Structures are given as C-alpha cells and as structure tokens.
C-alpha cells in the first residue's frame, strides 16, 4: 500500500511518486477529493517518529519524550484590513491608518475583505486541509486596550480549513530526515493593535494601525518532538506563505508569529504531560533554543521530584539570558465567551471557487524539493535552492536555458549566494539573469573561458548586468586554446628567461611552475592551462 510507505521516515522516491500520481488521478466529485485527502492525511500522520536528531537522542537517554505543538499567526499581505478599507503597512506613524470601524466606534459594522477568504483557502489547500464549504465568524471576548471592540472577530467551532498536514525536510546539518506534521485547523481572524509602553512603565499608549489586520491562525497537531523539528515547521510555514504570496512571513515585523506548547512525558506513557506555552520568540533559531531549554527545564524538574512545579502557564523567552520566564499562570482557563458574530453572514464557498484557486496554485516547497532531488542534486543543495521561491525560480530558469543542474546549483550556492549575503540583496534584486548564468556555464564548459575568468565575469554581470558575450569581448577574455599560439608564447618566455632555463637544466625542475606563470601572465590569464602545461613540458624536455 503506497500510503503505508508514506509513514516511513524516508519514503522511497518511487513510492512517493506513485502517491503523487494517486492524488493526481483523482477527479470529481470535489468533496471526495477533500475527503480522500483528509483520510490520507490521517492515515499518513506519524504515530511514532524515529527521532534521528541529537536532541531526541538526548531526551531518550534520560527516559523522556517531549510533545510539542505550535500555534502560528500569519499576517496576510492584503492591501486593506480584514473588515474595513484601511490600508496597513508596517512601521507607519501610530494611529495613521485607522477609521471608525477598526477603532471600534459606535455604530460601525465589519465588512469582510474577500481577499482574506481567498488567502485562507489557498493556504488551506497548500496544507492539504479539508476546506469548509460553510464556515462562520465568532466573537472572542476579552478586555484589553489594544482591542477596540472588546472582542476579536475570529473563527471558533467551524474554521475555514482543518485536518491537513505539512511535509518538510530537516536541515542536513542536523541529521536531515523527512517529516510529516499534522495540522489541526486554519482559521481567519483579525489582529489587535499594539501597546507602546513608556520607559518608566507608568503609562502605555495604544497604536491601532494593526487593529483589524487579517490573520490566519494555523494550529498544529502535537506531533513535534524536538526544538529543531518545531523550528523547521515554522520555517516551512514561512516558505509556504511566501511561495503562495499570501504573506511576507517576516518574524521580525511580526507578520509571522509562533507560540509553542511544550510538555514532556516518560517514554511509554500515552498521556501528555502538563503543557507550557512559550511566547516572544522572533526567529526560528530562538524557537529551537527556547524549546530545548524548556524541555531541559521540565525534565530536570521531573528528575528532581519537582514535577508539580510544571504548571499550565505562559512563559516568555528571554533572548539575552537564553531562558524562559513565567509571564502568567492560568488560574483556570480564561473564558472568552465565544458566540457567533451576528454582524457577518456565514462564509459560503462553491466547488467552482475552490477549484479555481486550486488550479492557480504554484508549485509548493515540498514538490519542488522532490523535483530537485530527482535531478540528482544532494539534499543540501535541494534544501538551499528550495528555501527561497525566488532562488528556486532563478535556478529553474537557468536550467530552462540549458544549463546543467549541478553546475547551476554550485554557482548559485557559491559565488552568487556569497555576493547576495555580502551585499544584503535578494536574488531578484541583482542584474544577473538566468539566461546569462546559463551562458556563463556553457562558456566555461566549452572552453571559451576558464573557471577563474568565469568568476570575474559573474561579479560583473551581477553588479552591472549585460551579457556574457559582451563582457568577454569587452574585456578581451576569450581563452586561448590554439596550440601554435601557446607554443609561440612558451618559446618567447623561454627565450626571455635564459638564466632560469639554465637553472632548470641544472636540476631545478620546480621552475616549470615559474615558466607556466610567466606564460599565463603573457596571455593575460587566457591560456588554456592544460594545453599550456603540456606544451611547456615538451619544450623543456627537448631543451634539457
């Protein structure tokens, strides 16, 4: 059974391809597709995961297993807010993009931005979820100064998408491995504003620019076992929303936010331990470290017989001390008094609408990684190239122009990546085009230029643009591959350096390198090095 094979840590390529074909052959009715996908997701969800990473091994050595779930908020990059026509852009002057509706003034009513629904369906499909043909909004009620209406419009019992999964590959440097993590639900909601606390702490100010900005909340199953897995889950969601174009997924700006729930239990115990929520992590690296710290903290308490000190609470990650601190304890659950939002009608979708979105979906990170893998690239290459949709597109385009996959990958991951990092640019901001990278690779391969010359040309192309051909001609960089021409230069160098020639004859054979260097210099670096050394060797031998 193909589905059974999907449970494995590393599913054979053939089986995965078959699974893909299996899904591809599904036709109408659409609901059956959703049902099948949901069933598939359930069947494929890992019941137990072989933890190959060091962290997991360390947990096991101590007799404990961690259980980790993540709630991710993705801020959508719609032009306007979820329920009014205000624009939003990060960093605006406080309270400059507000109106009576998003400020919760009396008499105002929400009007749903249709783009939010489209983004939600798009992400739901990408997460292999079952899409709700009818979903609804609810009110989540609590008082806080950044919440203008005293309630948040969200989705409670009927989210727009549920019961999906996310496939990902763990980084090679952490041992690699493929994972499938369950997604419990995806729901739409609005963001709150932001509080700006005075330095003295004596007062706070409210910035409502962010109030009403649309969010998608993605709740995972408690399927993760290590900080690395959780961090990679977050990173994969970031890739996904960027690939889809629904969000810029920027953690530093708060457009992608992860809150994690961590508990530990003795190996073999089926019940979960007491869950602790951790907030305030603004990078995936911080997520990994925060979770590892929390796991260690909880295991230590267990070992010291103080497990009762693990209480249901929210803790904050402190980057400077690399520890978590108690933010608030949950003395009983908060009662948000959810009830259906009476000012908004139900969200009713049609099969045609969902099909239309499905048909416009781009290739997603997981599919791209498998395709790259099938080209014979190493997993390290695959992960790098598929990490950024822009890079992947550049790579694909380079191949479309005829370049070899491995060579293209090397150039992109090597000199191009180094340049981008140094200059703090993204690949779509440079002037080098995929066509020209392909031309460059071809020029080196067919001997027109050397690899060394190629690097110089690359820098030129990245910074200034142009074509490989024009740069070569402009800088007179064509590699010299004519034996007669090289022979003439060798003869000249030998004639110009009689002293060194005499010394070579006396036994200092290492001087061949000197002569080679001189010839290369005379040729302005354009002499074919293989041919050069062959001819030089013969000349020296004849003269000895």
């Amino acid at each position: 059974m193909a589905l059974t094979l999907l449970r494995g840590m590393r599913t054979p390529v053939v089986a995965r391809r078959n699974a893909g074909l299996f899904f591809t052959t599904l036709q109408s009715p659409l609901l059956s597709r959703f049902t099948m996908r949901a069933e598939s997701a359930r069947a494929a969800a890992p019941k137990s995961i072989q933890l190959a990473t060091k962290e997991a091994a360390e947990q096991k050595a101590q007799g404990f297993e961690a259980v980790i779930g993540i709630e991710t908020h993705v801020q959508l990059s719609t032009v306007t807010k979820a329920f009014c026509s205000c624009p939003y852009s990060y960093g605006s002057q406080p309270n400059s993009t507000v109106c009576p509706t998003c400020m919760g003034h009396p008499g105002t009513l929400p009007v749903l931005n249709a783009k939010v629904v489209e983004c939600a369906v798009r992400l739901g499909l990408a997460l292999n979820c079952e899409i709700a043909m009818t979903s609804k909004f609810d009110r989540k009620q609590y008082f806080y100064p950044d919440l203008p209406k005293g309630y948040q419009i969200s989705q409670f019992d009927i989210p727009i998408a549920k019961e999906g999964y996310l496939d990902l590959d763990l980084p090679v440097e952490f041992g690699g491995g493929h994972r499938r993590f369950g997604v419990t639900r995806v729901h739409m909601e609005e963001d709150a504003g932001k509080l700006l606390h005075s330095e003295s702490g004596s007062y706070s100010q409210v910035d409502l620019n962010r109030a009403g900005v649309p969010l998608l909340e993605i709740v995972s199953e408690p399927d993760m076992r290590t900080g690395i897995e959780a961090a990679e889950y977050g990173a994969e969601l970031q890739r996904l929303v960027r690939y889809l174009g629904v969000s810029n997924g920027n953690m530093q700006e708060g457009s992608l936010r992860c809150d994690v729930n961590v508990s530990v239990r003795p190996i073999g115990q089926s019940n979960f331990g007491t869950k602790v929520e951790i907030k305030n992590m603004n990078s995936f690296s911080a997520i990994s470290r925060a979770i590892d710290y929390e796991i260690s903290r909880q295991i230590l308490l267990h070992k010291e017989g103080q497990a009762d000190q693990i209480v249901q609470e929210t803790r904050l990650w402190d980057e400077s001390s690399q520890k978590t601190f108690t933010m608030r304890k949950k003395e009983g659950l908060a009662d948000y008094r959810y009830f259906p939002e009476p000012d908004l009608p139900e969200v009713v979708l049609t099969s045609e609408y969902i099909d239309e979105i499905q048909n416009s979906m781009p290739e997603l990170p997981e599919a791209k990684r498998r395709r790259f893998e099938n080209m014979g690239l190493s997993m390290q290459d695959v992960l790098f190239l598929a990490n950024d949709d822009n890079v992947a597109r550049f790579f694909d385009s380079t191949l479309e122009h005829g370049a070899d996959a491995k060579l293209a990958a090397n150039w992109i991951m090597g000199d191009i990546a180094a340049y981008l990092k140094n200059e703090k640019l993204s690949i779509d901001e440079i002037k080098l085009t995929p066509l020209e990278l392909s031309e460059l690779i071809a020029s080196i391969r067919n001997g027109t230029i050397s690899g060394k010359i190629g690097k110089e040309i690359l820098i030129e192309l990245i910074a200034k643009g142009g074509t490989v051909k024009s740069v070569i001609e402009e800088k007179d960089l064509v590699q010299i591959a004519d034996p007669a021409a090289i022979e003439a230069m060798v003869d000249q160098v030998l004639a110009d350096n009689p002293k060194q020639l005499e010394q070579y004859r006396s036994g200092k054979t290492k001087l061949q390198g000197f002569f080679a260097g001189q010839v290369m210099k005379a040729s302005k670096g354009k002499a074919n090095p293989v041919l050069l050394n062959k001819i030089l060797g013969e000349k020296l031998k004849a003269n000895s």
Partner: protein
Amino acid sequence: MPPPLQAQRLLLSHRRLPSPHLRCFTAVSSLPSAPAKTVAAAAAHAPSSILSIRESLLSGERTAAEITAEYLSRLRRTEPSVRSFIHVADAAAEREAEELDRRIATEGLDAVGPLAGVLVGVKDNLCTANMPSTGGSRILDGYQPAYDATAVRRLREAGAIVVGKTNLDEFGMGSTTEGSGFQVTTNPWDDSRVPGGSSGGSASAVSARQCVVSLGSDTGGSVRQPASFCGVVGLKPTYGRVSRFGLMAYASSLDVVGCFGSSVVDTATILSVIAGHDKMDSTSSSHDVSDYKSELVPLDLLESKPLNGMRIGIIQETLGEGVETGVISSIKDAASHLEQLGSVVEEVSLPSFSLGLPAYYILASSEASSNLSRYDGIRYGRQVSGDDLNELYGGSRANGLGHEVKMRILMGTYALSAGYYDAYYKRAQQVRTLVKKSFKEALERYDILVSPAAPSAAYKIGEKINDPLAMYAGDTMTVNVNLAGLPALVVPCGFVEGGSAGLPVGLQMIGSPFSEGNLLRIGHIFEQTLQNYSFVPPLLAES
C-alpha cells in the same frame, strides 16, 4: 387647529366627497364614553404631512423656511412638557431650509429630493456627523461621530432636514424611555405617562408634531410599542431591509432601523428612502426597494371591499390573560373593521408565542454584553482614570453606564459563560428557530397576522421603574417578530380610558419577510376608513 390639518382640509375641498356607500362603515366605539374631543370627519383621515409640504413648496404657497419655522415654533412650545429631544439643531435646520429655498428657486423642486423641507427627528443611537450622538448614555456624553448613519445620510440626500436627536432608553434597553441617562420624556396624550420605549422620544416628537417623521430603532418592539402608546404609525422593517451602519448596536441580530409618521403614507414615504442594500452592512438585503407610497390607494379611489380575498389571523395568545380589557376591545373592534373591509378574520394559535419573551431576553442580553464592550473609556467617551487597567475599566463603565444596561450586560455575560452557554444561549437560539417556523407556517395560511402592539396603553411614569420584569412583560407582543426577523406595522386603532382625551391603542400587523408594501397598503386602507377617531394629542389642542 394645527396648520397641516388645515392645509389638508383645503386640499380636500377640491375633491369629490367620499362615495355614499363608504359612509356606511362605522367602527362603533366600545367605550362607555367616547373621547372628549372629536373633530370633523374629513380631518380623521390622517393627512400626509409630507405630501402637504411638497404641495406647498410646489405651489409656492409656503417656503421651506416658513415650514421649518412653524415646526420649530411648535417644538419650542411643546418641548418643555414632552422633552422628546436630547439635542435640537434649530439654527442648522433654519440654514438648511433657507438653502433649500434657494435651490428650489434656481433648480426646481424635483432637483432637491422627495423629502425637501421635511423635518426629521433622529433617535440618538443613530450616528450623525454634525450632532452629538449619545445612545442615551452618559458614557458617550459629548461624543460626536465622524460619519452619518446610512439611514440618516439617505434622508439628507432626499432633501430632509434633521432637526435634532430624540431621547431613548439607554442604548435601546427599556420600554419607557425612563432609562435615558439624560431626561424623562412624557406622552403627549398625558404628561404623567410614559411615551413607551426605547424610541419614546421619536414617537412623542411625531405625536406632538414637533417634526414630520422620525427614525427609531426596534430590537424587541422599541418602535411599535411607543407608536401604540403615542398614537402614531410605527414601522419595523424586515431584518436587513434598512442598513444598520451607524446604529449603535444593542443586539445585532435583532436590531432594525424603523420609522414613525403621523400617517401610513408618510411612513411609507420614509421607508422608500431609507431602505435598500448598503455595502457597509453585510447583513443588509439586496432585495428590491419599492416605491411604497405609490402603492397606496387614495381614499376616494378605494373599492367598497378593498380587502376582499385577504385572510387575516388574530394571534390567539395575544388576547388572553395579562392584556387589558380595553386593549382587547379595541383590537376586536379593529378586527371587525377589517372584516367590513372585505377580509376574512380568524383566530390563529402560535404555540411558541410564550417562549419568545425569555428567549429574547437571553439573546438580546448576550449580544448586548458583547456589543457594549467597546465602551471601555479608552478611545472615546467618558473616562474615569485609574491606577491600573481594571480600575480604569471598572470606573469608566460603572460611572458611565446606567442601571438597566449594567443589568443586561451581567445577564448576557452569564448566559455566554463557559458551562452556561449551552443551557441558555444555545437553548434560546433553538427557541428562536421554533418561533421562526411557527410564524412562517402561520403566514403561509394568512396574508397578515394581527395583535395588540402592547398589553396595555401608556402607564404612569415611575409605575414600573422598580419592576423590570413587569416592564419586560410589556414586550410580549413584539419580541417574537424580531426573533423571526419579520416586518410589522403599528397603526392607531382605538382608545382606552385615561388622560383627558383617552389613551390611544395600536394595532400591530405582521407580515412575511419583505412584505412591507402589503402591510402599508392594508394599514393605509384601515387608517383611511377608520371613522370617528382623531389621533392628535391633547397637548396640541392645549397649545
């Protein structure tokens, strides 16, 4: 005699007198003593003030400025007694009237809209950009919105002049208007009695002819019950018929913007202007808007049996225990009158009727507890400083909100709480479904249903102020209509004893969704053929 009535009489003098056979219709008063004041038969047919104004402007007999001055003069004379208005914008009204006159002179009457020169009172829970809007609450004392409610904007665009903001029970919660944070409004029929609520100010203002028509809101009867108490026409449209954008929410799934007029024609005219889909209100309907007024047949063109073929159901549960005998008599007389007009009138039982009141109070309070969360003293409105957040919230809300509002917030919070949601809120929603089903079935058998609009006529100010359950029970006739989302029209139909000239009683007519046109047509026929009654309050005779 008030000038509008006089104008109407002059107009009538140009018409053929009613056909002899129409004179045969007589609704005999069941009261041992008829109202002390009976005016000439011609004046009994609820003249259209809007039509009168339009004809005056068209003929040049009067200017908008003169009409406005007339109403403002009467407003100033009667307001100390009635206290309908929280805010009067008389200077602005005068300026707008003068501007209208200039435009009529240069562009013609048709260019300035069908409501040119019509003075409108607006309930103070509807936002107005150029006037304070308080919702009847001190927590919004001094608050001025940045925008007009859609219904207000549409009236202005139609040429109407908003003369001021009318008093109400705070945020629409109450049935007497005594719940206002600002003042008590009296009934123009007897200043020792309540005008009803929560739109008591809007009803009394029209009754006292302080303005031509007014806007109200109706969550559980807040338009219909005061219409009955004040002897005016009140219409609650189908849920979604009129945009709620700009209406301060009490209970979002029950609230509708309604209207009052001194005649059915005027009420129909207003509805045509304010009804229609609004992109700012996701629950507003795209259902076509009729020209409701044009569907109303003038008295002199009515057939002898204008309601022939129509089936009317009297809701059995509304004529029993708890309803005053005088009210029952008036309703039965109204039913007889409807029969004389050619309809078939039968009693019909709605088994779920008694369940409506408790379900209403659960649902309305639940939604209110959420809707009123925005009044936290942070961004606008009255703020009480505190050393911490809870102190700020607690102080602002304790100080700014009135007793009735606080009680309903607590009731609603309780009903939505974890552990109680299913027993209260969910159960109430299930009852709501039963009520809808019950009305739907009845309205498949009958063209309209009728009932009293309230179990009593207007009671004394202060009489029920310490007995909220007794006040709540007064909503029995009306809350079911909101639960079912149906349209209902209240027309004055009779009197009971009380006051110097008797106290008016209203007949409630309930229709299927979006059947406002039919209700107005029936209401108009009923009104125009009702003999021997005049619904002009003693306050005007006294002035």
